[in-house]
Each structure stands twice: as C-alpha cells, then as structure tokens.
C-alpha cells in the first residue's frame, strides 16, 4: 500500500515535470517563430518551366527620402538590410510623445551595439521641427545619429509614408498640440516588410518588440552549429 502511494506520487511528479519542460520548450519555439507579414498582400501569377506558379507579394514600404538631424539625407538605402523601428511624433507634442521616446530609448539601449538595427522617428510637424530643432531634440536625448535618425521632409510625403506604415497621423486643430497621431512603433524587416505594430507607450508591448527584433536578425553561424 505504502509502496503504491509512493509510486503514484512519483509518476505524478514525473508527469508534472514533463508538462513543465514541454511548456518551456514550446515557449522557446514561439520566441523564434516567424513574425507575420502585415498589410495588404497580392497574389501574382507567373510561369516557371511552363507551370503556373502563384507568388504572394507582401506589402512593402516604398522608397523614401527625408533629412535627418545632421542635415543628412536618409533614404530607403540607409535602411537597406537593416531591421528598423519607426514612429511618428513632434517635438512640441503635449501628450504621449515623451513616453514614446522614453520607450524608444529602451530599444536604442538594447541594440546600441548592433549595427543591424536602426531607429527612425518622423516628425509630423515639419514646419516647426526643422533640422536645427531635431538636432537639439536628439542632443538632449543624448543619442547617436548613426543609430537613431530624426527626420523631417515634405509634409505630404511624411503623411503618406505614415499610411504605408499603417500609422495614423494628421493635422487636427481640435487635438492638443494640433495633430492626431498614434503612439505606434512599427517593426520593419530588411526587405521593408512590416512585421509588427506595437503600442509605444506600453512597456509590456515594447518588451515584446525588444524580444521580436532578434528573430528577424540572421542567426549567427555559431548558434546554428550549436543547434545541429
């Protein structure tokens, strides 16, 4: 009888341990799993060796050109082969911007030494936020312009690229500060596909973003070897 009890206890323990490790493992795989491709996709037919093949073409951020805090031109070439996080703000924003920036600083610090990751903040008030104003803003945030570009440009181009990132941004006299905009952080991969949209004012979502970025980065050789 005693023995039986012990046996049941032991098998229960074993089961519990199994369940635990199972969970740990599945969490692991979730972390390295592929992020979705966001935005509209198109199916394109093409012929390969006389066979009809359907390709999925994902929404892609079009070419762009803006000016950063160093008066340097920032284009789609600047972010070529980089994973980047982008947002929309203005320096005189009386609402959520400072919170967004304090969260963006966390991303900056997490990937400060990784040149494969960049940050790109667009002003939606280019009339006020000139290069000099952006320069002062970046200086006061004490961040490096190779890593974190604060860009300005034609108002129309900024608002239309915001749409491409699926972020709302526009002028509205009723709103505090004169603009409506979302606090979204948009995660873009090396091919300018949008892979995630996060609330930049919510530390928990930014935690997730910081965990998602490495899944888009090419695995280091050593890691691959370890796996096999």
């Amino acid at each position, binding site marked *: 009888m005693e023995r039986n009890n012990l046996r049941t206890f032991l098998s229960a323990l074993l089961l519990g341990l199994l369940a635990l490790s199972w969970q740990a493992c599945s969490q692991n795989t979730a972390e390295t799993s592929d992020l979705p491709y966001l935005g509209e996709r198109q199916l394109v037919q093409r012929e390969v060796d006389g066979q009809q093949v359907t390709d999925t073409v994902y929404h892609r951020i079009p070419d762009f050109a803006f000016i950063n805090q160093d008066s340097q031109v920032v284009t789609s070439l600047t972010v070529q082969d980089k994973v980047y996080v982008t947002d929309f703000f203005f320096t005189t924003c*009386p609402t959520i911007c400072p*919170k967004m*920036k304090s969260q963006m600083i966390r991303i900056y610090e997490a990937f400060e030494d990784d040149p494969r990751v960049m940050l790109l903040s667009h002003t939606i008030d280019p009339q006020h936020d000139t290069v000099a104003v952006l320069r002062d803003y970046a200086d006061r945030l*004490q961040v490096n312009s190779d890593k974190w570009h604060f860009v300005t440009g034609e108002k129309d181009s900024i608002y239309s690229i915001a749409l491409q990132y699926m972020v709302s941004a526009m002028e509205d006299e009723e709103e505090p500060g004169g603009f409506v905009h979302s606090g979204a952080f948009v995660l873009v991969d090396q091919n300018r596909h949008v892979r995630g949209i996060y609330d930049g004012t919510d530390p928990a979502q930014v935690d997730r973003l910081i965990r998602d970025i490495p899944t888009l980065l090419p695995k280091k050789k050593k890691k691959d070897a370890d796996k096999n």
Partner: protein
Amino acid sequence: MLIKTKILLYLAGIAALLTLTRCFYSDKQNEGERLYTQNCANCHMDDGSGLRNLIPPLAGADYLENHRDDLACIIQHGQTGNIVVNGKNYNQGMPGFEHLNAGQITNILNYVQTNFGNNNPRFSIQEVEKQLFKCRHLLEH
C-alpha cells in the same frame, strides 16, 4: 454581558472612524495620483524621472524646493524658457493646465511633494490659491 456589548460598540466606532478618515485621506491622495497620471506622467513619467535632458525630473528635483512659490502657477499656465534643475539646463516648454482648479492643483502638488522619493512640505489649498492669485492675469478669458 453589558460591558462586552459596550466594548464591542466602542471598537466598532473606532473602526468606522478609522476607515472613514482613511477613505477621506486616500481619496485625496488618489485624486492627486490620478490627475498626475492623466496630465503629467506622459512627460514627467510615472516615476517622476523626466526624460534625459529634455524633460526635467520631479523626483529629487531641487527646483521644487527652490521655487516652491511658483509651482502652482507653473502647473496652471505652463512654463517656457531655460530653467535649471539639479544643475542641468532644460528648455522645452511645458503647456499650461487651465482647466485644473486650485483644489486639483493642490492634490497634484501634494502627490509630487510626497512621492518619487520626495519628502517636501505639503501645500494647503490657501497657499495654492494665494500663488494662483499672483498669476491670474495669465488666465485666458
């Protein structure tokens, strides 16, 4: 028997009083915190730490002591121009909060003065009203 009931009644009375004062006290404390979260935390952050050299801190800020007499007006009407907080320059500009009344400003200030590690003397509503009277010409009509 009778004595027991009496004691019980006393105890109940004391308990009721305690909960009442606690409610009253924490209500005000809560209003300060709630208003802070709504109006200030976006810039000064939930913990009053500010943002690098852009937004000055409220946590451990010498400014709160050195400029005690200006604080109510800063909240009501905002602030522009360079200021020095804990030896650092700030010059970003803070918007005013014209919709807040003297009682609300008192609660926010007391929340700031006694949180984030701050341990500064509290404000009475009379003191806040006196300060606001000095800058009343800034009110928009």
